[in-house]
Structures are given as structure tokens and as C-alpha cells.
């Protein structure tokens, strides 16, 4: 360490040593002169006594820096000088590695944040996700790994296995701290959430068990640090103030620790609300204590020393007993023997959850790894490219290296020199890569699924990222230095001194091998890119099944603004009428649940036609106004639209009629006429089919563009609930209509927030975010890869032509036709391209299954895609070889022979 410091101040050390030695000699000379020795003789004697100054300086320098460090420093300096002498080589190599390292680092930043990073809580490695495997015979809402609140409380009793078990659910609330209501993410949590996670408060306190006691009796809330800073300016007097959640006042008891952003990397809560207040956070929710309502994720912290396996085994007997008890409990739904059997054979499953629970991670897991693999391949290609460049440069440096060998430099020393070369290039590339990575990360974040919290991910460079980039740079340096060092090690001293042209043939074989590998890797990337592009194109061509032009959507939810159900419905009617009367509107409709957001309202159904059948999977449900079909351009294929006949009689509840889509009719009714068939929600024996199918609509997408699902739609105003998404077809451009729509809603209730206010075209785009991500990145990267390999191919072939100019000249002089010289070069190039393909195609075949799940309407081994890619690649490769080939045919025999 001290030696490194010495390196930095070596100028001063040198000066000091100089002065010190000079002082010694001067003193000695003057002493000798003092004793009567003549001045010249005194100088001679002093020098003699002292010994060789140069040698002593060297010895001292060795002490300061140690030998290898000095050598390495000299190597670096030498490398730097020779790089500065060949700027075009240096720039090409540095840019290659900068692209590779920058891209890899940027993607790794996302991989790290979304997939790898542990929660900023105490010992995250002891956290587990607890999930139910089997049929819970329960209704529910939310997505992934859901259980009921009472089960969480039961699990928390098992102190022999868990330090604690908590549960949480995300929801959106209308939040106000005095000003406008704004939609905000809230996390509903059990009282022990913070204590089990080991997260404290920045100010005030976090929840205690008592805050989650009696339902509706604990009006308290904890704010997130970001919300406190951004919305309240970090005011220290927030404690004890009220925050309004869906118009219910909750007292702020604290602000959570600044590093803690909830346990879902994609959703950053603004506020935490105790489960006892879930009725306020989710309007109309009354099932907190119902064992058969699944809506929360349950996580636990294992006791010190308890393994995941032991906890899982330890839970089963208790779980089985609980199942038996549950079946006998009053209120357990009447159900079929099969479902009951499924229920009793359920088990409880634990998975390690050091990163918490995240829907975003689930969605991005595969795409991110695919993209990361693609960048890794790109980086490999960049390294190969630099290797090739070094080899090319090496062959012009043969004379220098041969001379150094002849002067007694060891091969190890020369190898180190080459290593210093490639490390210097790689670290420079890495430095530039890190400098550009934040820009790339910011661009990448824009591709993340819609609804990801804007503060969820950051584009900054932290220590982990720096470390990653450094390791990658060093690895890239070693990798690109490997081939040249190997080549240098094999070179024989005699031959390199004997060769007059200063070139060696051995390097060409290695360079050809490198180009072949590059072509193979490029082929895999290009096929991948073609597949993802096909997927995106196919999905866009297919479209959602309804007309999206001039269509604007937005949601309102009066219940969250404190309206009772009936008044909420009246408000929606008022807004609906105002929109219809507006001059900007062509047609307008309302749907209970928005389309293309990834979610849906779904349930199993019972169908009563000739016989009674239950659906074998969930059916997607929605409720819409009669204008929905015209507004969206969805055809009614048979039967009729909703009308006044569907309005239920006073005193009656539930729907009287439904419209099903073609897929539903086909799957459950086959050839039978669906009109008049009775259906209902649920699949138990107690389900009573009393809703008549009055129409059949064409198929269209509900959750997302990939899905082809069975759907059943009900009339909007006849059901429960009071939120809705408006779909408005406007005259003129959508942009100019946004303000008018906002004014209409504002006129109905100034404090009512509008959510997801955007054109439906934009919504379609957003729903294809992952596909856009894969297609854009793999497209860009494979273009880069193609460029890199073309440069490599061109470089090798030019070199070959230069080397063989003499031979070609003789051939031409002896009467060979110029085209035979062209052929000579193209034959070489074709051999490389073909063997590259030969290696690449099995790779493509082997890697195909990893991307299968990301594709739509195309197989990984699609012959057309592969054929086109191969064709494009080969013609580009031959194109790159044509330039040197052309040069070969123009070799002037006289010049070539004279050069000899």
C-alpha cells in the first residue's frame, strides 16, 4: 500500500534522493579538501568511496516501489505511449469495450436492483414467503401468493419456528394531507410488520401489535420517508397530524426509516396502514377476519438456526389440523367433493424471500436474464474484437518483440507487457462504460412495465455497481489479452528475427478462429432479435381486437372519495351524461375494470344448458354500459346488446343478463345456440345459474394482448361496486380533448382524482413494454454485434491480402484472371462464415427454449426466421470481404514482385 503511495509521489522522492546524495558527496569533498587533498583528487576519491551512484539510486527505487510494481508501472507507461501513437487502433478498441462493459453494467444495475438486491432490513436472508399450495376454497383479490389475514395470525403463534409472521397487501388509496386528493400506493400490514422486518422509524414510531387490534378502532398511519420529504417537505411536526385516506382521517404516528421502501421493489408505498383499518383503505371491504378471503401475502422471519426445510416440515401437522378444523367451521362454503378433497390435501410451502415479494420481479425475471445474457454475449464479442485488433497490432510489433527477446527480456516479462496493454484498454473502456451507464439505465427504466413506481429504481452508480464494472473490465482485459499473449508465447525468436517483412502467419489462423467465433455469437444474437421482433410485430398486427384510434380512457373511483355506493353510481351517471353531451364526444362507455392493465376481475362459473357444468378455469368478467360495444368497435355476433330489458326490478338483486364472447361459447357450449343459456358466478353446488345469455360478442383482449380467454360481460349499472373506467371516442385529436374531459370530471366533483388518464393507443403500447424492451435491446445489440464481426472479418481479409500480395502478383503475372484472386479471398471468407454458422446454429437450437416463453406466434426454431438471418448475415459478411477481394484483383504484378 505504502508502495502505491510512493508511486504517486515518486517525483518528490527522486528529488529528495538526489539532494541527499549530492549533500553527502559535497560534504566528503569539502572535508577532503579541508585536509589538504587537491580539489580534483578529492572529487575522485569521494566518488570512489561512494560507489556507483546510478546503481545506488536503482537500489533505493526498488525499495520504494518493489520490483514488480515498478516494472508494471513502466509497462503501463510504455503501453500508454504506444497507444497514443496509434490512436485509431486505441479508439476502436476502447469503444468496443466501452459498449460491451457499459451495456453489461447498465443491465446489471437493473438485474441487481430488481432481482438480486436484498431488502434493507435486519438479516434479510432469514425471511421466507409462506404460501398455500392447493385449493383454498376462498374468494379473493390481488395477485400472487394470497392467503387470509386470520391464517397469518395463526402462523404468528408458531414461535418455535418463526420469530414472527406478518402479512401485507398493496392497494391504491386517495390520499390527502390537507390539499387535493391524489391516488397513492398504500401497504396494508399486520401490526408486527415493522418489528419482524427489523425496520425502525426516522421520526416518531412504527406500528406495534396494539395498532392492529380491534377492526376499525386504530386510526393510525406511518408515512414513507420519500412521501414525507416530497409532499410534506420533511416537516418535523407531522407527528400527531391527520392524513386523509379515502376521506378517513388517520393520525400520523411516525415516518419509516429512509432506506426502507416496502418489500416490493416495483411498488413504493406512500403510507402504511394497519390491517385493522383495511375497511377504510379498501372501500366496502369487511372480510378482514374471514378465513375464506385471500388477499394478503404472508411472510415470516425464521428463528435463528431454523432452516427453511425444517420449518416447512414442522408446519405440516399443524396445517393439516387447521384444514380439518376449517371444514367443520360454520360458514365453510358448500362445495363439491373434489374441491373439498383438494382443500384437505393442500400443503404449506416456504420459499426464501430475502428480496421480499414483488410482482415486478415475477414479470421481469425471465426478460431481464435474457437481456443480461444478450449483453454478456455482446461483451464477449467486444473482447474477441479487441483480441483480433491486438493480434493485428501484434503482427506489426513482431520486430519490437523479437528484438526485446533477443536482448534478453523474459517471455513472462513480455507476456506481462501484453497484459498491461489489454488491461489498460479494458479499464479505460470500463471507466467510459461506467460513465455512460446511468444514461443507459435511465433509458432502460422507461421500458419497465407501466405502473412501476417512478422512485422504485435509481440510475445512480453505487459501490456494488462499481465493483461489478471493475471485475468485468479486468475479466474483459484478461480475456482480450489471452489470445495475443498466447500467440506471443509461441513465437520463436529465430523465426521472428529472420522474417524480413516483420509479419508472422501463425496470427492469421488465430484471427480467423476469432472471426469465426464472432460470427457464431452474432448469429445467435441476430436470431434472438429476429424472434423478438417477430413477436412484437405479431402482437401489434393482431392488436387488442378493438379499435383504439381517437379513444381515451380514464378511471374514477367515488368510493375512495368517501361516496356511499348509491351516490357513487349517481356521480358516475352524471359524469357519463356530461361527457355524452360534450361536443368533443363521438361515443362514450364505461367498464367496471380497465382493459390491458394485466389484471382482471375473474371467477369460475357454472353454466346450465342441457346439463349443468362448471368452467374448468377462471373466466374473465367485466361490467359495461350498452355503448361499450359501439365505442370499442366490438361486434355483437349473435343476440342483442344490453338495453332496458336488463334493468332489474325493484327489490331484485344481481344481474339478469350477460353477453359472452365467442371463446366462451365455443369452449363451454360447442355447437349449441348460446342464447338463452343460464350462467352464474361460482362453481359450488350452491351456485344458482340465473343469468341469461342474451348476446355473443367477438373476441378481444382483456388482461393483455397475448391472452385469449373466455369472457362474460354484465350490464354496468345493475351490479355492485361503484368505480369505473371511461372509454371516450373523441372527435379530433385525443390530445386536444384531454383538457375538456378533465374539466367535465372536475365540474362533477373538484376533489375526485382521475387515474390512468391516457389514450388507449398508449395503453396498448404500455402493455407491450416487455416485448418492446426485448425487441429494441436485442435488435440494437445484434446490430452492434454484426458491425463488430464485420469489422473483424474485414480486418483479417485485408491482412491476408496484404500478406499474399506477392503470391497473388505471381499468379496474375503467370496469367491468372483477376476473378481468381477475388475467389481466393471470398473462399477464405466463406469458410469462416460457414463454420461460424455451423457453430452458431446448434447454439441457437440449444438456447431457444430459454426464450420460448417470451415469444408469441413464432417458434424458436422457426425456419423462415433462421433462414433470413443466415442469409442477411452471410451476405453482409461476403460484402465486407468484397472490399479486400477487390483489392486483391487489382494487385499489380510488377509492384508485388519488386517488393520482394
Amino acid at each position, binding site marked *: 500500500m*505504502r508502495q502505491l503511495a510512493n508511486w504517486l509521489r515518486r517525483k518528490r522522492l527522486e528529488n*529528495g*534522493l538526489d*539532494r*541527499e*546524495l549530492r*549533500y*553527502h558527496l*559535497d*560534504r*566528503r569533498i569539502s572535508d577532503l579538501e579541508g585536509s589538504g587533498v587537491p580539489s580534483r583528487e578529492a572529487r575522485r576519491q569521494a566518488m570512489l*568511496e*561512494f*560507489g*556507483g*551512484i546510478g*546503481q*545506488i539510486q536503482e*537500489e*533505493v527505487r*526498488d*525499495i*520504494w516501489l518493489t520490483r514488480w510494481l515498478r516494472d508494471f508501472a513502466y509497462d503501463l507507461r510504455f503501453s500508454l505511449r504506444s497507444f497514443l501513437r496509434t490512436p485509431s487502433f486505441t479508439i476502436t478498441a476502447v469503444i468496443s469495450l466501452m459498449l460491451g462493459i457499459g451495456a453489461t453494467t447498465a443491465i446489471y444495475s437493473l438485474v441487481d436492483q430488481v432481482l438480486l438486491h436484498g431488502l434493507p432490513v435486519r438479516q434479510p436472508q432469514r425471511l421466507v414467503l409462506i404460501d398455500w399450495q392447493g385449493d383454498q376454497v376462498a374468494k379473493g383479490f390481488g395477485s400472487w401468493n394470497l392467503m387470509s389475514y386470520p391464517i397469518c395470525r395463526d402462523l404468528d403463534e408458531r414461535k418455535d419456528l418463526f420469530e414472527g409472521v406478518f402479512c401485507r397487501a398493496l392497494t391504491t388509496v386517495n390520499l390527502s394531507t390537507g390539499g387535493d386528493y391524489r391516488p397513492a400506493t398504500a401497504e396494508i400490514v399486520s401490526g408486527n410488520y415493522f418489528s419482524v422486518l427489523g425496520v425502525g422509524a426516522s421520526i416518531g414510531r412504527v406500528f406495534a401489535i396494539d395498532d392492529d387490534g380491534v377492526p376499525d378502532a386504530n386510526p393510525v398511519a406511518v408515512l414513507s420517508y420519500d412521501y414525507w420529504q416530497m409532499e410534506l417537505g420533511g416537516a418535523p411536526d407531522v407527528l400527531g397530524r391527520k392524513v386523509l385516506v379515502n376521506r378517513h382521517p388517520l393520525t400520523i404516528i411516525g415516518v419509516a426509516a429512509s432506506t426502507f421502501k416496502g418489500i416490493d421493489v416495483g411498488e413504493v408505498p406512500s403510507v402504511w396502514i394497519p390491517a385493522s383499518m383495511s375497511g377504510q383503505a379498501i372501500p366496502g371491504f369487511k372480510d378482514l377476519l374471514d378465513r375464506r378471503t385471500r388477499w394478503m401475502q404472508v411472510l415470516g422471519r425464521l428463528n435463528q438456526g431454523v432452516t427453511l426445510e425444517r420449518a416447512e416440515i414442522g408446519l405440516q401437522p399443524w396445517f393439516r389440523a387447521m384444514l380439518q378444523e376449517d371444514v367443520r367451521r360454520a360458514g365453510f362454503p358448500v362445495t363439491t367433493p373434489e374441491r373439498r378433497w383438494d382443500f384437505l390435501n393442500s400443503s404449506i410451502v416456504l420459499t426464501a424471500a430475502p428480496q421480499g415479494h414483488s410482482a415486478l420481479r415475477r414479470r421481469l425475471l425471465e426478460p431481464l436474464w435474457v437481456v443480461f445474457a444478450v449483453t454478456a454475449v455482446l461483451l464477449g464479442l467486444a473482447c474477441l474484437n479487441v483480441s483480433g485488433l491486438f493480434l493485428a497490432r501484434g503482427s506489426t510489433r513482431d520486430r519490437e518483440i523479437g528484438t526485446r527477446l533477443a536482448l534478453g527480456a523474459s517471455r513472462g516479462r513480455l507476456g506481462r507487457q501484453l497484459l498491461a496493454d489489454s488491461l489498460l484498454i479494458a479499464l479505460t473502456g470500463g471507466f467510459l462504460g461506467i460513465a455512460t451507464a446511468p444514461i443507459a439505465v435511465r433509458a432502460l427504466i422507461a421500458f419497465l412495465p407501466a405502473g412501476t413506481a417512478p422512485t422504485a429504481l435509481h440510475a445512480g452508480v453505487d459501490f456494488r455497481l462499481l465493483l461489478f464494472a471493475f471485475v468485468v473490465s479486468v475479466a474483459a482485459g484478461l480475456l482480450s489479452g489471452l489470445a495475443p499473449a498466447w500467440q506471443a508465447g509461441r513465437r520463436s525468436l529465430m523465426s521472428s528475427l529472420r522474417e524480413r517483412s516483420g509479419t508472422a502467419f501463425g496470427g492469421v489462423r488465430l484471427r480467423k478462429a476469432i472471426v469465426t467465433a464472432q460470427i457464431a455469437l452474432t448469429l445467435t444474437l441476430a436470431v434472438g432479435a429476429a424472434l423478438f421482433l417477430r413477436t412484437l410485430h405479431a402482437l401489434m398486427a393482431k392488436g387488442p381486437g378493438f379499435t383504439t384510434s381517437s379513444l381515451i380512457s380514464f378511471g374514477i373511483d367515488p368510493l375512495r372519495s368517501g361516496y356511499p355506493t348509491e351516490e357513487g353510481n349517481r356521480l358516475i351517471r352524471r359524469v357519463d351524461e356530461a361527457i355524452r353531451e360534450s361536443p368533443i364526444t363521438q361515443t362514450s362507455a364505461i367498464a367496471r375494470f380497465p382493459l390491458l392493465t394485466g389484471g382482471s376481475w375473474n371467477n369460475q362459473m357454472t353454466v346450465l344448458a342441457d346439463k349443468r357444468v362448471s368452467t374448468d378455469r377462471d373466466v374473465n368478467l367485466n361490467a359495461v354500459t350498452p355503448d361499450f360495444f359501439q365505442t370499442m368497435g366490438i361486434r355483437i355476433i349473435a343476440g342483442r346488446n344490453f338495453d332496458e330489458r336488463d334493468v332489474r326490478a325493484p327489490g331484485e338483486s344481481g344481474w339478469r343478463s350477460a353477453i359472452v364472447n365467442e371463446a366462451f361459447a365455443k369452449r363451454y357450449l360447442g355447437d349449441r345456440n348460446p342464447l338463452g343459456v343460464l350462467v352464474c358466478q361460482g362453481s359450488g353446488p350452491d351456485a344458482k345459474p340465473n343469468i341469461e345469455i342474451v348476446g355473443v360478442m367477438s373476441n378481444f383482449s382483456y388482461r393483455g394482448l397475448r391472452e385469449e380467454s373466455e369472457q362474460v360481460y354484465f350490464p354496468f349499472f345493475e351490479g355492485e361496486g361503484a368505480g369505473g373506467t371511461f372509454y371516450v371516442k373523441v372527435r379530433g385529436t385525443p390530445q386536444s380533448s384531454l383538457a375538456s374531459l378533465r374539466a367535465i370530471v372536475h365540474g362533477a366533483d373538484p376533489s375526485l382524482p382521475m387515474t390512468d388518464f391516457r389514450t388507449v393507443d398508449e395503453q396498448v403500447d404500455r402493455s407491450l413494454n416487455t416485448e418492446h424492451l426485448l425487441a429494441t435491446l436485442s435488435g440494437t445489440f445484434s446490430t452492434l454485434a454484426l458491425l463488430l464481426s464485420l469489422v473483424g472479418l474485414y480486418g483479417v481479409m485485408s491482412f491476408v491480402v496484404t500478406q499474399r500480395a506477392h503470391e497473388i502478383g505471381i499468379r496474375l503475372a503467370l496469367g491468372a484472371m483477376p476473378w481468381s484472386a477475388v475467389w481466393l479471398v471470398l473462399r477464405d471468407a466463406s469458410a469462416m462464415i460457414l463454420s461460424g454458422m455451423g457453430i452458431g446454429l446448434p447454439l441457437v437450437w440449444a438456447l431457444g427454449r430459454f426464450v420460448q416463453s417470451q415469444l408469441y406466434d413464432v417458434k424458436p426454431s422457426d425456419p423462415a426466421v433462421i433462414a433470413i438471418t443466415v442469409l442477411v448475415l452471410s451476405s453482409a459478411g461476403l460484402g465486407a470481404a468484397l472490399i479486400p477481394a477487390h483489392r486483391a484483383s487489382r494487385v499489380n504484378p510488377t509492384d508485388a514482385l519488386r517488393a520482394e
Partner: protein
Amino acid sequence: MPSSKFPIPQGTLDMLIMQIVSLEPAHGYGIAQRLDQISRSVVQANQGSLYPALHRLELKGWLRGEWKQSETGREARFYSLTASGRRQLVAEKHSWARLASAVQLIFSEGAES
């Protein structure tokens, strides 16, 4: 009769240097003079070879070098013993004494027999 001067082994030179500067801080030339005075006819140190030793001891943290005005008025680099250098000197003297007495013991045994 062998030459009256023989080269100083490296470890011994280090010890001698530390002993000299332990009395008072000294510059390189001063140390060379002292070495010469103490052991004029016995040991021969190529005067220059003093400097690698000084810098090695400084790097080890046993000596500290500072530029100070010398007796002639010119700036010279003065070396003084650090605390860890003092400990090192004690340890080395101790082991030197043990080695010397052991050697002496063997020699005197040889003389008796």
C-alpha cells in the same frame, strides 16, 4: 593475514545504523563518518550502500527522515529512530547478545579441549 576490512552483513549494518541514530538524529554523511570512526580498521562499508539501507528502514517505519538545517548551514536529511524502531533495536541487540555469547561459548569449549 586476511584483509583488515571485510564487508558488513546487511542485518548488522541495519543494526549499527539504528544504534547510531538512537543516540541523536543524524544525516547520511554523519552516519557514514560515525561508522568510519567506530570501526575504521575493522568494517568496510561502501559509503553509498548506506542509502538503500536507510530508505529500507524508513519504509519499515523504524526510521523517520526529515529535512533540517545541518551544521554547515545547508539542508540535509536527518534520520531519527521511531518508537517502533527503538523496540526493534532492543530486540536486535538482545538476539545479537545471545548469538554472540552462544558463539563465544562454542569457541571457548573448543579452546579447552
